């Protein structure tokens, strides 16, 4: 559980209203973050573990961390797959959440 997640520095992004739009320099397509994803993006300005993210997101939505943990893990995996966030395991960057879990 030492894996920490953070925004990739190699992306361009803007907040537009309640959405965040991200453009990866390595993949010329836009990713639009909506609903709770902009909050996750904001939190990932500094590296965070899944538990830290779950605690912050749950507090924001008035629920418990276990209630958001699973969907949050899925979102992180998707963001990793798109290459717009990165994961660091004990200081070593890993390619994806699945890879990190394994």
């Amino acid at each position, binding site marked *: 559980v030492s894996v920490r997640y953070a925004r990739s*520095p*190699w992306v361009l*992004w*803007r*907040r537009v*209203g309640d959405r965040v*739009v991200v453009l990866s320099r390595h993949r010329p397509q836009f990713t639009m973050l909506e609903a709770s994803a902009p909050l996750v993006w904001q939190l990932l300005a500094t590296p965070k573990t899944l538990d830290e993210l779950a605690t912050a997101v749950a507090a924001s939505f008035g629920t418990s961390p276990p209630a958001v943990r699973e969907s949050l893990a899925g979102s992180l995996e998707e963001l990793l797959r798109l290459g717009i966030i990165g994961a660091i395991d004990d200081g070593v960057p890993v390619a994806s959440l699945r890879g990190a879990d394994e």
Partner: protein
Amino acid sequence: MTVLTAPDLLAAVAADGLLGTTHGLPPAPLLDEEFEPLLEQCLSEKLTGALITAIGSGRLAATDLQGHRVSEAHFAAVCHCMELEAALLDVTRVLDEHDIETRVLKGSAAAHLDYADPSDRTFADIDLLVRSDDFDKAVALLLEEGFTRPVPEIRPGFDRRFGKGCTLNSPDGYELDLHRTFVTGPFGLTINLDDLWQLPAPFVLGGQHLMALSRELRLLHACYHAALGDRPPRIAPLRDIARLVLHDDLDEQVVRELAYSWRGDLVVAHAIRSTWETFALADDTALTAWARRYRPDPRQARAYRTYFAESANYAARSWASVRALPTTRQRATFLFALAFPQNGVIGGSALSLRQRMGRAGRGLRAGR
């Protein structure tokens, strides 16, 4: 109830959030037939950020449909800016690999350095400054990268010595303005170009470190762009000017000293006065008080007329530039290039020698 004209409404939207503006916004939603032209103007003036902020804050009333229309238009504008920034990173990387130093001008630099939220400042092209000595090499490198140059150089070496720069079109269809100075003509030639490279302002974009002009130079550039570009001036640079002048950390003395040494006081005073009038700003600073008191220097006034007099054109401004050149040799080279352009082409149009002389004559009269 005061009925706002379309330009007043646009200015009021752009001024929204600026300290001291006395412009007011309509308290009730506009009719759709009033709203659509406003949205169109905001799109063409790159003001969708101001419009969506005014609506989002509740200061400009809008129907749900109007809000949705603005939201979608702004979203598209922001995405386009990000595509331009991705291209900007590619261009600066290519130039950097060949030891060509750059400064990011206007759009992207203003968005990241002068606005709390970069989405608030949209733009339509990329503007980059390179040193005169690097100019030809930079153009050649970008042509190798697949860029095209729609308007050819008047004569080899002309841009590097006398020009503002040139426009290049990327293979993807976006426009890159490569500058060596701020503007064409006499006011561009009296700028001490070494000044432009002092005290850069760094910013990070997509993990890449970029350099922009210092805050004072960004203000001066915005003034030159606003005062010598379109008439009436575009609103986006005026908005940049207002934000920069009202910034607590602006060194107003540096701005005035540089404007004076570049013989550009008229340009700066005019741009600042236009900004304060357009946005109906009530609060004065030392710089705006100076701009209000400024009396035009006759030589600068003569040069200024070549940008806007009825008969002014590229040649007129170029002739006026002769006065700004410091040496006889430079004047001779400049005049030779105008009289005998490469392939008879000036500014993208082929002219006979007689036509060139005719334009030049009209230009001289406009410059007097």
